[in-house]
């Protein structure tokens, strides 16, 4: 029998629809694999095995009763722990929320349930999504399936690793400065940050409200599109949610598979997002991919975005400023950790302080302090105010670029996955790792990362980032599907099929079957 965990969500959906497999079988296969590999990998903070099987059973019953269900009905999914789930703890990777089960579902989670997907559990992340490696998770890091000594990216390293390691076919992530795209790049998976306002943030534990966006994590562009169609669209509970009608992203992705889909597409290479400071193998794969695109008929030009050089600085003022306010609610009064001071009077101020001291990790404290400072009277204009001006300049750079080209491309990250601890002691080095992904968040435009090969020097995945104008998410999927097809045809295989096997036991089992 086909190894169910290796199938795409689209293929699983097909098998489920025609009755070849049951959702219980598919769900159990993934749960078994999680049980086998996740002790080492640690992609999950919580696995809801019983609930997942029960939900799968109900979906099977509906289908057996003749109900017509959606394309992903019965397909398992992993959910980043930043999203509120009423039946699973939602900790955002923080001790301050350890064990907290929200009384409500995030809108995207509700939409998953309405579409009859099967939540497998909650995935690991840097605490409150602050980080690029999952090393800032209060519950310990997730390992990269390609090399367990290396980071899986962050903050959504758990979702990316779960998908790359075949623990789930698809997952939900959130992207504030690259938290979907950079983990996708370093794990050889696909991740999309939709247009700001394209997917509801209601129930997503806020890091930086003006930058956060929930999006799909998958192994194929088409799967990401299918998931995007499930979670996207207007939500009255999120005031920043766009009311625009959206085309089907899945249809857009299918359009990318047509012959000549790349012909005449104008691709801009952002001068400031490649070159110096980028790993040799990353540059090499990027150059090769551009050559393949040109050969397929795409028009490649270089465009300049002169203000991008200020993007990291602006981002690390806006994000901490908003985060310092968003994280004020973690005060022990209504939910989460409560810690009394070890000595002295037990006043509300002192309980709040003791709780926040005990509950927040060092990176969270660092950013709260930064943000509090940046918003202070006398500094506001110099820091937060200036950062907002930079944001406008970056949006103008994008506007100018998109007058000349349809899409912009760059490597998704300057390097392949780095080793644990390599950048932990140097926050600036960690922050600079986001240079490629941050501009899209500052401008609110959609971005995608998809695999473009392995770096020759370390054999680790390299990601291609594609960015489109605001609200043109469909264009990303058409192009992404076309590039994916072009590269896989060129390689003769998918990238993830080259990932090392994680569970020897499973290998023996299948060999036994073969024998």
């Amino acid at each position: 029998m086909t190894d169910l965990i290796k199938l795409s969500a689209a293929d699983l959906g097909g098998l489920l629809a025609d009755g070849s497999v049951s959702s219980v079988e598919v769900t159990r296969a993934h749960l078994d694999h999680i049980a086998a590999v996740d002790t080492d990998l640690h992609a999950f903070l919580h696995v809801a095995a019983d609930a997942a099987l029960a939900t799968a059973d109900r979906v099977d019953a509906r289908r057996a009763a003749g109900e017509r269900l959606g394309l992903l009905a019965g397909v398992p999914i992993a959910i980043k722990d930043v999203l509120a789930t009423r039946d699973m703890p939602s900790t955002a990777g923080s001790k301050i929320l350890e064990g907290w089960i929200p009384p409500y579902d995030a809108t995207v989670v509700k939409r998953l349930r309405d579409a009859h997907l099967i939540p497998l559990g909650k995935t690991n992340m840097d605490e409150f999504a602050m980080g690029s490696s999952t090393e800032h998770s209060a519950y310990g890091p997730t390992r990269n399936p390609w090399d367990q000594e290396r980071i899986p990216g962050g903050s959504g390293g758990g979702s990316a690793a779960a998908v790359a390691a075949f623990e789930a076919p698809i997952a939900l992530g959130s992207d504030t400065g690259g938290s979907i795209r950079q983990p996708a790049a370093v794990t050889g998976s696909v991740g999309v940050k939709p247009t700001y306002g394209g997917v509801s943030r209601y129930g997503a534990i806020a890091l930086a409200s003006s930058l956060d966006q929930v999006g799909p994590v998958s192994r194929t562009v088409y799967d990401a599109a299918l998931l995007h169609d499930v979670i996207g669209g207007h939500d009255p509970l999120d005031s920043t949610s766009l009311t625009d009608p959206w085309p089907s992203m899945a249809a857009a992705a299918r359009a990318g598979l047509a012959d000549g889909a790349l012909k005449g597409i104008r691709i801009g290479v952002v001068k400031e997002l490649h070159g110096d400071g980028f790993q040799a193998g990353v540059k090499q794969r990027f150059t090769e991919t551009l050559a393949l695109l040109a050969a397929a008929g795409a028009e490649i030009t270089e465009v300049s975005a002169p203000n991008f050089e200020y993007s990291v600085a602006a981002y690390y003022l806006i994000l901490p400023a908003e985060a310092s306010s968003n994280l004020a609610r973690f005060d022990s009064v209504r939910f989460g950790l409560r810690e009394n001071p070890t000595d002295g009077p037990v006043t509300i101020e002192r309980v709040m302080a003791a709780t926040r001291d005990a509950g927040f990790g060092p990176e969270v404290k660092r950013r709260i302090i930064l943000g509090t400072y940046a918003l202070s009277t006398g500094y506001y204009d110099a820091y937060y105010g200036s950062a907002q001006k930079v944001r406008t300049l970056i949006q103008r750079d994008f506007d100018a670029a998109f007058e000349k080209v349809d899409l912009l491309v760059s490597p998704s990250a300057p390097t392949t996955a780095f080793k644990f601890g390599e950048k932990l002691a140097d926050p600036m080095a960690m922050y600079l790792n986001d240079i490629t992904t941050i501009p899209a968040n500052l401008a609110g435009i959609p971005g995608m990362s998809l695999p473009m090969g392995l770096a020759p020097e370390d054999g680790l995945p390299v990601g291609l980032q594609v960015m489109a104008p605001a609200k043109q998410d469909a264009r990303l999927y058409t192009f992404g599907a076309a590039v994916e097809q072009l590269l896989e045809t060129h390689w003769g295989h998918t990238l993830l099929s080259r990932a090392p096997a994680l569970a020897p036991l499973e290998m023996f089992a299948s060999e036994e079957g073969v024998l």
Partner: protein
Amino acid sequence: MKKAELMDFDKALELYEPVLGFEVHVELNTKTKMFCGCANEFGQGANTNTCPTCLGLPGGLPQVNRKAIESSIRLGLALGCDIAETSRFARKNYFYPDTAKNFQTSQYDEPIAFNGSLTIELESGRQVTVEIERAHMEDDAGKLTHKGGATGRIQGADYSLVDYNRGGVPLVEIVTQMIEGGEADSPEIGKTYVAAIREIVKALGVSNARMEEGNVRCDANVSLRPRGSNILGTRTETKNVNSLRSVERAVRYEIQRQAALLSAGGTITQETRHWHEDTGRTSAGRPKSDADDYRYFPEPDLVPVAPSREWVEELRATLPEPPAARRKRLQAAWGLANLEFQDVVNSDLLDAVEATVAAGATPQAARKWWTGEVARLANVAGVAADSLVRPHQLAALIELVEAGTLTDRLARQVLEGVIAGEGTPLEVVESRGLAVVSDDGPLIAAIDEALASQPDVLAKIRDGKVQAAGAVIGAVMKAMRGQADAARVRELVLERAGTAE
């Protein structure tokens, strides 16, 4: 702590010029809260009208209540304000357990309404124009109850309970410019200004406007500047003064307290102060400096509010007549004396009297009944007068009196019947059999009987001592159980006494 000494008010004004400023919070009476769909009402159990958004749970997000924007714009227009073409919410960051998010969603540099003014008239007839700096929208905090302490304050309490039902209720905060030149009228200016705001929000129907329930709350800023100086003194902010009389008293108290302190060489601490209704004093709250840092920044979870000019003009067209102008017009139209009219206004019965007059009653009778018998019954029942009886019913009652069908005394009985739900005044008259007997037949019979039983009185009348008829009239009215027109009875008594000769 040493008792604050007060300087004589007149003496204080000789030495110092008071400078005032008011921040009035108006709780809007929208059906739902400012930023979520929870009901804007109290009375059920604590924390029942709450959701992830107004509880500040992780992941909760605000949605703006359109009705609250509409009410704020109408209030802004009624205060003569400009309405911003684009207005933004901002976060005011501070930690306090009644503020679920640990920031208040308020407005900072882009309020919905600004640059207004309100002219008030003092009892002396002096007109004072209060400039309105801004009116901005924000959400209310929850309610803290401190248990175990002696004072009900957080200091010394064993524990505190938080009820977030009020958390997220829409407020409009109206901020005045500095009010200078108030002089000895300063306390009255405070009272009259807050009364005017209250009257406006009531007329607009945007708030229940009950100060005793905190629908309208006043923070009074007072500072003193020595005569001849042009440098502003340090101000205090007396918080949550919740009756008109208290506003007046609190301003007066602060003037006297600050004057005593300053003239003794002391300095005023910039601070909030608590008003104590029972002792009529203020006490120190928390220090408040201009450097208080709320780290305001634009609320990223909400988009700017950009009311179209068309909408603003539509709302302007819905504004009621300004209450002050309306009072002037009605007093002139009704021809009531100042005291009579003030009585109506102070009893909150302007609407009731107006509706009663509209239903056909004379203004004088409507005034008399509302401020007299109806108010008395309402006072006994402990309810608002205008909740007891409908204006058209009172007008019908007055009509019966003026037609001679009822005497005042009978009418009071009918009113009780109407209030008891026995029907319209006419129905009560019929069911209780209370109409004046206007047929002379039964009256003459009763008079003849009374005259016959009091021959000495009859003799006196015949001797020309007409005032002796009173005893007969009394007996007849008693026999008729009051259902007779005393004037007619008098006429008939004299007539019968004459014909009996």
